[in-house]
């Protein structure tokens, strides 16, 4: 790494031959002709102990001439981290899972001996010119987690060093930009993106090319581009991983758009909760500036574009584009009514185009491989793939990239490997703005329209798998609690509506629900959807509406029977949040309580102190009423 950074410092990249020389260096660094140990060092890997593993490899292999140690981003299979790939000189590789410090020591030893183990393996793959694998390991395409995936956005993740420009170029990076700058008119680039059917990956699904055309059509002297990396949806981390694993791709997408639309300044608005993403992005921007891929003369074309990072300060509403722009301007991040739309009047009242991280990362591939190729990957209405973060009650958690149109069940059962044990109940998509895709609709192909029809939405890509033990009322309560915190307070429908909805849901999960609650929830939801100022308030009731549609009986069980069928929320803890205890010293063993108990949760010998099994207790309180000595204590 150090060597490469020095190397890049005093050079400029002005034309295709400069790119080609970088490409050669990148290939040498990717495939150095000796065994290469690649440690996945994105946030998930680090949290699982990849830093320690990396250090071990560096120490143990320092004196081994036939091996080098490198860093890379995320391979997506997060719960198998730390992941370490060993690439042999012939291009065959094995990815090992769970490589903690101790495992790393053994593996380093094996690498030094040139004898790779075939245990602890996630999968093998073939790099470079390798055609077949001589080791007895499954290939990536044979591992269920990867088999149904198609990696366009994540193509470099877990393969290149996210801080190496040369390795990015060796994977075709910046050739798309070069092609756009030298072979296309700006308008043709816009047309290509329109033809690709690329739609906004932040969740809205607005056609990206159309957005660009609005900005291109505005002849203001100053125009801006913004990368929305304010990934606030709890349960989603695609953008974080992408910025950590392949930051150059996001920037190349923005550079191509700057040429297409005439914008000369860009901003990346990124959550401050993502320190590593910020670090790698900063590094990428510095590198590109130093070689002339950002600045006044991009790739020697005379086109000017520069980029700056703006760190968020913790506000979910800033994912909304007008609030985001207010925050970039250092104001309170409050949305404003549209129109005017950003391409008319955006950042500092200048025309602005905002796209999400994942959207930007798709662009270089569209230019390089063509709009038709991209459009063919997805559905009729939306081209390409979508990255999801699959979490919750699912066996394989991680980042998953599948072509649009892939059925929900493929993601849950094939890629995700099914639930962790319980019966599958549904998938929450779209976070606090989305809803549930229930089991009976699991065959639905994933697309913007199909999810909206089901009452959910694509959202930014969070996919939380829920099994029978998840209480749907409590799940709605969780999201509303989130929205109450995050509502900026500007418009009353959202400010009061979220709070009122939350109060009703809390009542229902506490066993204080009333018959009128369901109607009240519905009416609040309609009002908020119709009258809130921005997307946050308009969509905040979605989790409620969606669970009411598919799981209304669960609401009624809470209200009428004071029971939680999932056994999950406060009601479902079985005791209405109460604990009963017999004072052992005073119990004479009269057995009255045990007789009164409807669930046989009390046991004890005749004339010996009795006790209550807290697991079995449903908190009905009948024992306390029956006790002649009044020695059953209630807590809670």
């Amino acid at each position, binding site marked *: 790494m150090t060597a490469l950074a020095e190397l890049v410092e005093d050079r400029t990249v002005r034309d295709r031959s400069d790119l080609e020389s970088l490409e050669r260096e990148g290939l040498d660094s990717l495939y150095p002709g000796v065994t290469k140990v690649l440690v996945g060092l994105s*946030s*998930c890997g*680090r*949290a*699982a102990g990849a830093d320690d593993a990396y250090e071990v490899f560096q120490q143990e292999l320092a004196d081994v001439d036939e091996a080098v140690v490198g860093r890379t981003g995320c391979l997506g299979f*997060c*719960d198998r*981290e730390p992941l370490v790939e060993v690439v042999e000189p012939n291009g065959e590789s094995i990815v090992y899972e769970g490589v903690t410090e101790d495992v790393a020591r053994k593996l380093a030893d094996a690498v030094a001996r040139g004898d790779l183990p075939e245990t602890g393996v996630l999968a093998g793959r073939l790099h470079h010119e390798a055609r077949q694998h001589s080791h007895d390991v499954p290939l990536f395409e044979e591992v269920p987690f990867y088999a149904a995936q198609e990696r366009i956005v994540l193509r470099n993740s877990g393969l290149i060093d996210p801080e190496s420009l040369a390795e990015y170029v060796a994977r075709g990076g910046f050739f798309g930009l070069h092609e756009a700058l030298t072979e296309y008119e700006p308008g043709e680039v816009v047309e290509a993106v329109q033809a690709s059917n690329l739609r906004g990956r932040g969740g809205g699904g607005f056609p990206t090319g159309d957005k660009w055309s609005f900005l291109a059509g505005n002849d203001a002297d100053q125009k801006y581009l913004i990368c929305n990396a304010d*990934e*606030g*949806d*709890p*349960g*989603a*981390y695609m953008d*974080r*991983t992408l910025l950590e694993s392949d930051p150059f791709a996001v920037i190349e997408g923005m550079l191509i758009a700057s040429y297409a639309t005439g914008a000369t300044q860009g901003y990346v608005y990124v959550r*401050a*909760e*993502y*320190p*590593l993403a910020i670090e790698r992005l900063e590094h990428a921007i510095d590198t590109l500036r130093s070689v002339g891929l950002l600045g006044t003369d991009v790739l020697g074309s005379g086109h000017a574009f520069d980029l700056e990072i*703006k*760190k*968020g*300060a*913790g*506000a*979910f509403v800033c994912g909304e584009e007008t609030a985001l722009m207010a*925050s*970039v*301007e*250092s*104001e*309170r*991040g*409050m949305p404003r009514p549209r129109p005017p739309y950003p391409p008319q009047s955006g950042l500092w009242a200048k025309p602005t185009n905002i796209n999400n991280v994942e959207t930007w990362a798709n662009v270089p591939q569209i230019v390089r491989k063509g709009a038709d190729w991209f459009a063919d990957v997805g559905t009729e209405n939306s081209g390409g793939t979508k990255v999801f*973060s699959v*979490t*919750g*009650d699912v066996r394989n*958690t*991680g980042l998953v990239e599948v072509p649009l149109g892939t059925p929900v069940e493929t993601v849950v059962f094939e890629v995700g490997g099914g639930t962790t044990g319980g019966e599958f109940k549904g998938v*929450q998509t779209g*976070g606090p703005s989305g809803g549930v895709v229930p089991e009976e609709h699991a065959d639905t192909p994933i697309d913007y329209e199909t999810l909206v029809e089901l009452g959910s939405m694509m959202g930014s890509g*969070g996919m*939380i798998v*829920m099994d029978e033990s*998840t209480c749907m009322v409590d799940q709605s309560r*969780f*999201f509303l609690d*989130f929205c109450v*915190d*995050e509502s*900026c307070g500007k418009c009353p429908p959202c400010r009061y509506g979220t709070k009122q909805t939350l109060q009703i849901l809390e009542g229902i999960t506490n066993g204080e629900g009333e018959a009128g609650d369901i109607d009240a929830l519905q009416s609040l939801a309609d009002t908020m959807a119709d009258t809130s100022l921005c997307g946050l308030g308009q969509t905040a009731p979605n989790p409620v509406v969606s669970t009411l549609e598919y799981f209304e009986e669960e609401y009624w069980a809470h209200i009428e029977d004071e029971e939680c069928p999932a056994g999950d929320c406060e009601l479902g803890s079985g005791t209405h949040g109460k604990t009963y205890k017999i004072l052992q010293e005073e119990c004479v063993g009269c057995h009255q309580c045990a007789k009164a108990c409807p669930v046989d949760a009390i046991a004890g010998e005749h004339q010996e102190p009795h006790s209550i099994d807290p697991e079995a207790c449903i908190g009905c309180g009948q024992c306390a009423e029956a006790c002649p000595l009044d020695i059953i204590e209630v807590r809670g």
Partner: protein
Amino acid sequence: MESRSLTYMKPLESIHQAVRGTDDGPGGEEELVPADAGVEDVCPSEIETVAELLEPFAEDKESVIPALQEIQEEYGYLPRFAMQLVAEHAGTSLAHVYGTASFYSQFYLEPRGEYTIKVCTGTACHVKGADEISAGFRDELDVDLEEVTDDGQFSISHVRCIGACSLAPAVMVGDQVHGNVTEEKITAIVDEYADGQREVGGQ
């Protein structure tokens, strides 16, 4: 804003000497400096420190958030006098700076512990028991949310998703993520940082 004892705050040592406009400090007795001490209450050297932090930023309203972030990086929170200086630098009012700072959840107007344990309460962590983890840390450190331990070392906050969903439940200390936290691991995590043993970036 209620005045609070700040003597334990590391960066506050200098403020503590600076209080009441003297560089000599209040002498042997430790005098308490309230978070709402204004520019008139702190000594010139403290003002200089903030002025140096502000120097790289344009004298414009658009610098407010980045400037506040820089100050919080230094002090761990936003002392009132520093917000006054930001307002002056950016050519705006203290009310505007305060209004901006109070809008965002990551700005603290009260001092924090040296380490803030951020318990993730995002969806995946919620499903996997973030509530219990949070309660476990509060028990371990004997503080409530957003409070500072008596020795000034720790505070506990909730954050909405740190993006480590596959490692749920997760907590973040500084810029370090701890995944798959169980109630059994809580003591070990606290011990890792106790007495400033571990350097962390960020807040």
